[in-house]
């Protein structure tokens, strides 16, 4: 059997996962620094529109990518201004921002709808693109795949192996202790919020310049930002696990498209909404597994109990329980 079909499937999963990975990484950085950015969905959509418009105006898709990142950082800047300077509830502002950015994207992008425009095309790595399986899936692919995988490594290295990443994690874990240590907590929070927003902006650009090229009302990436938010919880705020989560959700989407050919009786709408019940189910399983009652019960089991962690892994201190406390 030839490797063409598995390679195409792997490539499709990696391709669909690329923007999800970036958006989820952006939220990971933001939440690791103690800022919950609920505006993800609107940010992704607005950045997709800005990136497509900029790419059309300049003719250069990479200029569009930069513009998308700037748009994402700008939305995060509004959130940071409300949160840090005005002391408003980040959750409430983030939620309103997500609705606002979505409508703003549709309104401002009206002239861009259903227009032809540049996209990021295919990027071939010389020498590697002829490898079996991974060649077509990774190295003769849209550049977003390699960029997203590089971003996972870069974010992991930044958070876990650099001094600045340590400062960021300290601020997110215990703002009071970090302030006592002489760290400018507010500034670090604003910076990580901006960085997270820029990554989410890149995710939007990935959608409109590669994964779902073009702009329209609807664009086709609606809801992706919310899935990214859920993936961060699913991945336990760890970059590599978050990337696996994104691949898992992309695999569901791709499986839906692949199954549509096999089972034509099932409606296409069923597969479009499939990620959302899965999102709820994964959150249910992950949150129950992290609950104290479950850990207590599991530890009493023979053998399996040894495998249970003694403490609840997961949310950075400043973020833990923020959603349960309400707004």
């Amino acid at each position, binding site marked *: 059997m030839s490797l063409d079909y598995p390679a195409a499937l792997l490539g499709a999963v990696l391709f669909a996962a690329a923007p999800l990975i970036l958006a989820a990484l952006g939220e990971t950085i933001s939440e690791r620094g103690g800022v919950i950015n*609920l505006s993800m969905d609107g940010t992704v959509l607005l950045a997709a529109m800005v990136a497509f418009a900029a790419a059309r105006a300049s003719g250069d898709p990479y200029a569009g990518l930069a513009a998308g990142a700037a748009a994402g950082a700008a939305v995060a800047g*509004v959130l940071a201004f*409300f949160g840090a300077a*005005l*002391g*408003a509830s980040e959750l*409430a*502002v983030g*939620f*309103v*921002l997500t*609705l*606002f950015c*979505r*409508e*703003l994207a*549709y*309104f*401002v*992008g*009206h*002239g861009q709808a259903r227009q032809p425009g540049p996209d990021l095309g295919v990027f071939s790595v010389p020498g590697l693109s002829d490898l079996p399986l991974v060649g077509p899936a990774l190295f003769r692919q849209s550049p977003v795949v390699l960029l997203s995988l590089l971003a996972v490594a870069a974010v992991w290295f930044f958070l876990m192996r650099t001094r600045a990443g340590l400062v960021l994690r300290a601020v997110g874990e215990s703002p009071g202790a970090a302030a006592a240590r002489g760290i400018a907590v507010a500034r670090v929070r604003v910076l990580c919020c901006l960085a997270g927003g820029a990554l989410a902006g890149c995710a939007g650009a990935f959608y409109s310049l590669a994964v779902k090229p073009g702009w329209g*009302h609807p664009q086709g990436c609606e*809801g992706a930002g*919310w899935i990214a*938010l*859920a993936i961060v919880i699913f991945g336990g705020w760890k970059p590599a696990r978050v990337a696996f989560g994104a691949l898992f959700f992309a695999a569901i989407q791709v499986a839906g498209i692949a199954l549509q050919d096999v089972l034509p009786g099932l*409606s296409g*709408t*069923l597969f*479009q*909404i499939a990620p*959302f*019940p899965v*999102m*709820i189910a994964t*959150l*249910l399983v992950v*949150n*129950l597994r992290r*609950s104290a009652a479950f850990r207590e019960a599991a530890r009493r089991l023979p053998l399996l109990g040894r495998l249970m962690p003694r403490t609840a892994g997961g949310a950075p201190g400043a973020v833990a329980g923020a*959603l*349960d406390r*309400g*707004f």
Partner: protein
Amino acid sequence: MIAGRAAPLVRAALVLALALGVTLAIVFAAGAPPFDTLAVMAKGGLGSRTALLRTLSALAPLLLCGSALCVTFAVNLWNIGVEGQITMGAVFGLSLLRAVDPAGALPPDAAVAGSLVAAMAGGAAWALIAGVLRTHGRVHEIFSGLGLNFVAMGISLWLILGPWKRPGMASMSGTEPLANALWLPALFGRPMSLWGLILALAAYGFAVWLLGRTFFGLTLSAVRQNAMAAERLGLRPKRRMLAAMGICGALAGLCGGVLVTGLYHRLIPSISGNYGYTAILAVLLASGSLPFLPLACLFFAVLTVGSIQLPLELSLDSSLAGVIQGVLVLTLFAARRLWPAAGPKGGA
């Protein structure tokens, strides 16, 4: 913080002026004539008898959902799933009508009333899924509500294109229209029902009574302010949350039922028409206070209806209504921090 304490009216005027400025800047940046655009919106929402009727028919679902959301906000629940609850209300209401219609088992009036009750049950059931996920599954209602919105949309699309499709052809324009006898009585021959408005006002009155005049409303407030203390007092916060979700879902489902029997007379794709999200913004604009809610809903209804004229007259996207609504709420958030309200209640 910066200025002193401001009277609420002064602050409201500042919010409106600031929001107007930001809106004009956005419209100008989009390359449209700012003042003409606002004039078209105002005329489209208030300019004629037809426009006023359209605004009133948009006010009914907004006020229904706004009253519903005040109940969940009273226990600090963010019921984002209100869109899906509207959709499921519409689906349940129509399924009852479809079941009794050919059989003629019920007189038409009873069938319509029954479909509204079924709609309330559908909305409440959909809301309780999100509620149980929150209270017993530790899944925040924002995620479950949002996910369930997409699921409800999928279910309604599947029904329209599959089991409930029109004889001969499935079409995105919706299911087969209801028989005239099964419509809510129309007003002045327009596709708008006075009953929708009456039900919305009744729901608003119910919310005012429930939250302000009953022991149940008081316990909701206790749970919001300190869930731990409420637990110690034996108020059972989880049950209160579920009850609030159920009531909210029932009212949102009623909204779906009214949309089916009073406005569209069939099930259409995305029947909730963004009313749920708009209602959330209206409640936030009213700061969760019931006396200001009808005003906020009316204002947003004018914007929503007025924006429908934009694609026709200026070839702009009708989402400008949502942009203005978002700007208003954000400027209100900013104003509340910059100029804290005077009075015994203190700042925000």
